């Protein structure tokens, strides 16, 4: 029996965490002599006040949706996949290979092909730690985080020594051909009469991310496999007794997880940069952990949390552009939100649970008075 009603669990806890983070952030901004109200206004207008702002917010949110889902599905199997970063990097490599070396006739085919490659590369990168966990008991947290470093090194080697165009200094691939250019929200919304900003990078992969959210919801709560994953996550021994193979579930959950992280690359590599640069993921893999925690590993929660973090990123960029708040303090503000919503969850949850318990006890009929 849950102590709190559902609405308190999903709405009240994150909301109070956010307010706490906002108060602390305001103190930080006050401390360096800036006006917190103006700063918040600037963040809100910059991130949500125009289609341009929305374009960037949704672009970042798309990244975080993929990585948030990646962490979520692994969470359901009680696997802590910290390797989203590396898996997304490898996904980027898959996208780059697909876009550069296959002559696609149309973007829609390129999108399908690149998505498949991204998922394949990401899944393969997650499969190795998964195998080590399932067969050898090497702890997945350690192996996935190590694989992030290996991925960075592999990508660096490939970009510097193999895929960098001759004469270019930037460790990046050549630009993808025009046929692989994904339609942006501007292109998508123009036919229905919405004039979305042209400059913003949000693109059709947002829809892919939303589709992935729905797919994951169906998978987790409406299929036998999802049931097995959840059962394994709740209790490994019970799952084993019920005939569920731990090796199979570990592998499948991690492969799906890696594939989702890899698919992030269609947004940042194919949709935005249109070439593979070093460090294309920029920590989105790690933000995904916070997104999954805040979204309670539920696809819809992940969707909302991703938009919140997209807002923080874009709002933070606007702060950096138009105020003298230094970059480091903007990171502090973003980190405070992550800290409160992700790591300090219980700080809000426990007192709230006590309050709700108190209310319920006060309302509950006295057990000493049997009815008639």
């Amino acid at each position, binding site marked *: 029996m849950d102590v709190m009603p559902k609405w308190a669990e999903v709405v009240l806890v994150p909301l109070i965490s956010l307010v706490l983070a906002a108060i602390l952030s305001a103190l930080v901004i006050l401390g360096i002599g800036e006006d917190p109200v103006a700063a918040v*206004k*600037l963040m*809100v*207008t*910059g991130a*949500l*006040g*125009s289609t341009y702002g929305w374009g*960037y917010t949704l*672009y*970042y949110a798309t990244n975080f949706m993929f990585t948030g889902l990646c962490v979520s599905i692994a969470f359901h199997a009680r696997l802590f996949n910290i390797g989203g970063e590396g898996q997304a990097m490898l996904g980027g490599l898959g996208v780059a290979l697909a876009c550069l070396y296959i002559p696609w006739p149309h973007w829609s085919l390129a999108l399908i092909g690149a998505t498949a490659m991204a998922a394949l590369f990401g899944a393969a990168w997650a499969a190795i730690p998964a195998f080590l966990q399932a067969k050898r008991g090497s702890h997945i947290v350690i192996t996935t985080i190590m694989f992030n470093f290996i991925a*960075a*090194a592999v990508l*660096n*080697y490939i970009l*510097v020594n193999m895929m*960098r165009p001759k*004469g270019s*200094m*930037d*460790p*990046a691939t050549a*630009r993808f051909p025009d046929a692989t250019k994904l339609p942006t929200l501007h292109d998508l919304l123009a036919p229905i009469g919405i004039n979305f900003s042209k*400059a913003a*990078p949000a693109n059709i992969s947002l829809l892919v991310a939303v589709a992935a959210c729905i797919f994951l919801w169906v998978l987790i709560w409406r299929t036998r496999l999802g049931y097995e994953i959840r059962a394994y996550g709740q209790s490994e021994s019970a799952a084993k007794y019920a005939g569920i193979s731990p090796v199979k579930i570990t592998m499948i959950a991690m492969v799906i997880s890696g594939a989702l992280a890899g698919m992030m690359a269609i947004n*940042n590599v194919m949709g*935005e*940069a249109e*070439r593979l*640069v*070093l*460090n*294309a993921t*920029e920590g989105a893999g790690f933000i995904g952990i916070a997104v999954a925690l805040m979204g309670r590993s539920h696809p819809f929660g992940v969707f909302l949390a991703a938009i919140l973090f997209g807002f923080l*990123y874009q709002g*933070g*960029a606007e702060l*950096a*552009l*138009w105020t003298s708040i*230094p*970059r480091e303090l*903007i*990171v502090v503000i973003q980190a405070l939100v992550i800290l409160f919503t992700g790591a300090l969850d219980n700080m809000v949850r426990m007192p709230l649970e006590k309050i709700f318990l108190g209310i319920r006890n006060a309302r509950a009929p006295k057990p000493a008075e049997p009815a008639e």
Partner: protein
Amino acid sequence: MTLMTKFLGAAAVTALTAGAALAEPALIFDLGGKFDKSFNEAAFSGAQRWAEETGETFREIELQSEAQREQALRRFAEAGSNPIVMTGFAFGDALGQVAGDYPETDFVIIGMVVDAPNVRSVVFNEHEGSYLVGIMAAMASKSNTVGFIGGMDIPLIRKFACGYAQGVLAANPDATIVANMTGTTPSAWNDPVKGSELTKAQISQGADVIYAAAGGTGVGVLQTAADEGILSIGVDSNQNYMHPGKVLTSMLKRVDNAVYQAMKDGPGMEKGFNVMGIANGGVGYAMDEFNKDIVSADMKAVVDEASAQIADGTLMVHDYMSDDTCPALSF
């Protein structure tokens, strides 16, 4: 609905304040950050010098993510900033996309070439400056072993290493060069602890002069070299002052001059391709009161001779990036 009006009102206010700052120059720092004691900081000091001399102000932003490159360029251009100066080769691609959309705005990119009618590209011959400090390193070394610590393993840093190695071998053909890169990710630009460890490792291999071309990582290299009693060589900015008498010299890359000049020229400046080498004072080595006692007259004479030869073209230092090979060092 009232909330929406509030947002819109606030948006209008921001737009107005942004408009008030019209025609200010803007400076965009690369991901390394403004105070890296090296490349970006040099750019900042150039802009600072311009601001102090003219009493005007400039806009600036330190990037946090790759996606912000294009975003910052467009935002500044749309807000009317002119010229827009950016540090770092990584802007090349983004600027190539953006420059055409804002023909009225002048862009200056430092460390990369972008071919557009409204762009001034400033590049430095880092291999020439590194060659000079390589000569000094070889002459100052007693163990005949010198070290090089690079930041991230990219062609640009190999260009530094290659020029340095050529200088070392020119002064002492028997010298051994120990070269290490700090890492393969951008964090290698800002990892003084690892810089310190690499310095100790190179000392154990006999190196007694170490050249750090590693951004913020170099701070750790210089510190450890000073602690262990060997010499070090700074990079980009003049870093001699950081450990007086322990830093042999610094390879100067006058990013500050390039930024200062760009802001001084202002809108309507001369565009095109701008190579800053030894010949026009774009690169060089640092002499000041902190290192005058450790640089012998003999050393200075040899370096100045080489410098003159490079300037008039009689001495060619091989540029690693011209063909991705280095005759003096293998990576």
